[in-house]
């Protein structure tokens, strides 16, 4: 792996993040409305209650520098973004956007990472078994069902799971990250509660994502099993289990990893809505609530963090891939 290759990847990463940040800045302004000013005005009209309108207004003006020209606003915005300073939440002033994100981020990462990894492992294994001649016919008969699951958005599957497992059967809680009343703590009890609550949201991501991995793995596995070295290994008397894992899956799974990085963005946006459906205390639910309150700074902050996560995971994958697959080293 040459330094130029890594440099190009990093440049791409910076470009992606920069583009997202720029869209974030210019799109609302191009539309010509100022959601923040509107929101503050609406709150001033209704009295606002506990919210200190005056200081919020001032913080907002100071932050956006409304009297300054656009290019100078843009530069100071970029400066804020680089320092991860997204300002205050309008709905929860004086809580900062960062505090809200810090509360939600671990939930999202925990749920997403686990669900994505489980779906990747099961899906790849399933996809390989569908075309493995020695595997049971059951696997190839599963194909239509897998296709249907792959075509349906995550959160719709989530709603069906809530209906079946939380309401009709009562096996799992209907939503939330932990029981109402329980205090987050590092105890075994609390960990059990968290797993119990995470089961259904994770299952809906896993069910929907398995299809994507299985279908791609099926295609790759057909190609790999048709290679001469597999025929040779079989003729030589390599045991079927070794043939399947070491000769087949090991080679077929590499392109899957590239897709893992590519589809990560879709998984993230899909998971956002899954969180909303389950009122899971992660970034998705935070985003949903902020949209409800027109809490524009929080919306911008959450979107930026999610874009950054997707871009960073792609960068890592692009750097790791050539280490795993010698064919990608130039």
């Amino acid at each position, binding site marked *: 792996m040459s330094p130029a290759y890594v440099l190009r990847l990093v440049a791409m990463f910076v470009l992606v993040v920069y583009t997202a940040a720029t869209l974030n800045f210019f*799109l609302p302004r191009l539309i010509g409305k100022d959601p923040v000013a509107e929101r503050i005005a609406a709150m001033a009209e209704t009295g606002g209650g506990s919210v200190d309108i005056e200081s919020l207004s001032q913080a907002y003006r100071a932050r956006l520098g409304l009297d300054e020209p656009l290019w100078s606003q843009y530069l100071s915005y970029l400066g804020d973004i680089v320092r991860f300073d997204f300002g205050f939440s309008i709905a929860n002033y004086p809580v900062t956007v960062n505090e809200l994100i810090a509360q939600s981020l671990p939930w999202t990462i925990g749920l997403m990472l686990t669900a994505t990894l489980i779906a990747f492992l099961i899906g790849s294994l399933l996809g390989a078994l569908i075309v493995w001649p020695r595997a049971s016919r059951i696997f190839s008969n599963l194909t239509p069902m897998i296709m249907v699951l792959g075509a349906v958005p995550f959160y719709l599957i989530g709603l069906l799971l809530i209906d079946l497992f939380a309401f009709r059967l009562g096996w799992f809680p209907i939503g939330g990250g932990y029981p109402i009343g329980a205090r987050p703590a590092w105890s075994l009890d609390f960990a059990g509660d968290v797993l119990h609550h995470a089961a259904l949201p994770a299952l809906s991501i896993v069910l929907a994502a398995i299809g994507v991995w299985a279908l791609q793995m*099926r295609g790759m596995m057909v190609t790999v099993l048709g290679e001469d070295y597999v025929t040779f290994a079989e003729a030589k008397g390599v045991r079927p289990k070794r043939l399947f894992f070491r000769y087949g899956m090991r080679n077929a799974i590499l392109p899957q990893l590239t897709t893992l990085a590519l589809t990560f963005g879709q998984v993230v946006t899909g998971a956002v809505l899954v969180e909303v459906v389950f009122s899971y205390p992660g970034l998705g639910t935070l985003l949903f609530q902020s949209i409800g309150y027109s809490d*524009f700074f929080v919306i911008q902050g959450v979107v930026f963090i999610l874009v950054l996560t997707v871009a960073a995971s792609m960068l890592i994958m692009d750097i790791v891939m050539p280490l795993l697959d010698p064919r990608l080293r130039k």
Partner: protein
Amino acid sequence: MAIADSVYERRSRLATTFSYLQRNPSLLFGGLLFFTLIGAALVAHVVYDTSLSQPLSVMPSQPPSAELPFGSDTQGRDLFASIARGTLLTLGIGLLAGSIGLTFGGALGFIAGFFGGWVDTVVKLFVDVLLTVPALLVLVIIASAVGELPPLGMALVIALLAWRRPARQIRAQVLILREAGFVKTARISGRGPFAIIFKEILPNLLPFLAASFTVAVSAAILASVGLEALGLGSQSVPTLGMTIFWMMNFSALMLGMWWWVLTPIAVLIILFVSLYLITAGLDELANPRLRRRA
């Protein structure tokens, strides 16, 4: 003679299409599913009073019955009327955004792939960067700045990013076809770039473009339903995504109103699965070599 010939030809073409569909079950089944759903929604518009999709039209919170086939929601919308209108509205959003996306993306892909050089480099970088940014999130920013989006606005907002994937896919296809023998022959025989694009390359890409179109429509529907479920759609229009939003907003599951939950989901699943099957079928038509894989 001439009449007999044309009748014979037409019949044989119909027979060819039919026998092809028998060999391509995903296209046949997906098409049937899709057109049955659309047909049912259209018939419902004719025989049923779809204005009942407004709030306070019928008794609220009623389970399905002879009078209310899909029941009603807590605000007194007749869900059968809502779903019938929503199916066509949501599909309309998808078709409009998908068409705009395919037209712009396709044009960009053709220009980049056919002319190559620095134009191609710039377009490819641009598309690659934008493809990495998750579309739904950018759309959330736009939609939340605009406020409530009616179906037409929703379609236009989604179209803003719907051109990326078609541009990339069509560019790759044009790059392959540009080097094909018949295109080189046309170039040597002195045909201009536009004649080559429209007379030589485009006709060969038609099945591929059709598949790109169904993918774009499906992605646009996915995005619109997602944005609406997040509460960014227009509250006065009963698109499928808004029905999902209301259902979540009023905790239909907690109230035990399963009909409110299951009907929009069932229609969306039929819509997504049928579009997926049609895409798979068109892919097979565009690239018969896939047949050996399955």
